[in-house]
């Protein structure tokens, strides 16, 4: 009993678990929403228009999907550090700075997934919309609607990536307790202090969140496939 109390106290006071959870959720929700807007718009645009060098753009997109977040963190850090080109914005060691970095990491993921789905879906939807006499706007709206589960899925993937990311958030946010400390950077800190139990508890919490997200994703995937009569 004492042990658990000890543990809870330690997590809550020393490392600031409540705050870390709050910061993680706030950051992940914001960066996922921003990335969804940019990523979906970019992905659909990329599918819609052909231009010279499009294949290169798609390839770069795919590369960025797998870019090590810590590299993005470094670049963002250099941009927003006091002497950097964006230093005047005062984003260094703030949640807003972390959201910026995460948006740069997740947008290519959502963009790439949206693009792949759109390439598969759009031709048939466009032909259908034409036969129905739909306008351009109606066609685009229909395409988004027809892809909605896939788009949710892309967003969930982005969110999952966001909550589990540590490198960029550490560099840009600085792991300030109660302020920019997230669940993942808290774990990193606990480890460096040699406090493994608490780290593991937080880790399990993250794992539980990831599991819930997977359940959601699975539900959506089933929603897409089920009831189809091939």
């Amino acid at each position: 009993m004492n042990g658990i109390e000890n543990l809870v106290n330690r997590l809550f006071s020393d490392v600031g678990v409540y705050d870390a959870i709050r910061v993680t959720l706030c950051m992940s929700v914001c960066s996922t929403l921003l990335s969804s807007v940019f990523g979906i718009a970019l992905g659909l645009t990329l599918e819609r228009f052909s231009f010279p060098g499009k294949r290169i753009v798609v390839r770069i997109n795919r590369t960025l999907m797998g870019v090590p977040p810590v590299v993005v963190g470094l670049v963002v850090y250099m941009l927003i550090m006091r002497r950097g080109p964006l230093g005047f914005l005062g984003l260094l060691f703030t949640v807003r700075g972390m959201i910026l970095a995460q948006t740069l990491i997740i947008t290519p993921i959502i963009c790439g997934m949206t693009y792949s789905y759109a390439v598969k879906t759009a031709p048939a939807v466009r032909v259908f919309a034409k036969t129905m006499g739909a306008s351009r706007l109606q066609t685009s709206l229909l395409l988004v609607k027809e892809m909605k589960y896939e788009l949710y899925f892309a967003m969930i993937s982005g969110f999952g990536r966001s909550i589990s990311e540590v490198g960029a958030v550490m560099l840009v946010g600085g792991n300030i307790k109660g302020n920019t400390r997230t669940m993942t950077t808290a774990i990193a800190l606990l480890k460096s202090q040699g406090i493994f139990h608490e780290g593991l508890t937080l880790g399990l919490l993250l794992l539980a969140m990831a599991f819930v997200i997977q359940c959601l994703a699975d539900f959506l995937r089933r929603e897409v496939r089920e009831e189809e009569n091939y």
Partner: protein
Amino acid sequence: MRIRNLEKRIGDFQLKIEDLTIEEGKIHGFVGGNGSGKTTTAKLIMDIIQPDAGRIEYGGLKLTDITMTSQRPYLLHDTVYANLVYPLKIRGRKPSKEQIQELLALFGMQDKAKQYARSLSSGEQQKLSMLRAMIFEPKLLIIDETLSNLDPESVEQFERMILEIQKKRPVTWIMISHRLSHLYRLCDRMHFFSCGRVIASGTAEEILFANEEPEIRRFMAKELVQRGEYDL
């Protein structure tokens, strides 16, 4: 509507239609073997693909008044009802309950309004796509191979319905099929496609009984043999 010197190249396939007139209010049939260019012509009319040369004179017909049911219909990821009313929705028109029920009843599908459209049997999916094409009262309907997949009773039902529509409010139809037998009862005019060309146009009588084109005679003979009406 008139098609003049239309040319379209797709890979090795070359479509070339010198002169094809689609008279208003008539039922037209496009018939010919697989890959003879029927669907390609329909897509050109529907402006899904654009010709390399030549043109289509629509004669006042707007693209939004033309519709086409695809040989592989696209059904929205939604209910039968949502699919059926989609063309009305985008035109800002309100569907009436009676109209929907009446349409679905034509094919005995009145109980299926709430069913997920993609869970229908393939024949039912085809029927739904036809009803969806008819619901907004287009002036030209292109039915691509859709009849070919229906059971005999539904075909009869459909033919009766078309003839009824033609009596009330004539619409122009283009029925596409790879079998003469699907079309000759229904069509006012038939156009025979072969290797990307229209090699004969005329009434069903003219095509069936008066055309000497060896290709068409061969096509007919094979069809008869396959149906067991003519034993070699």
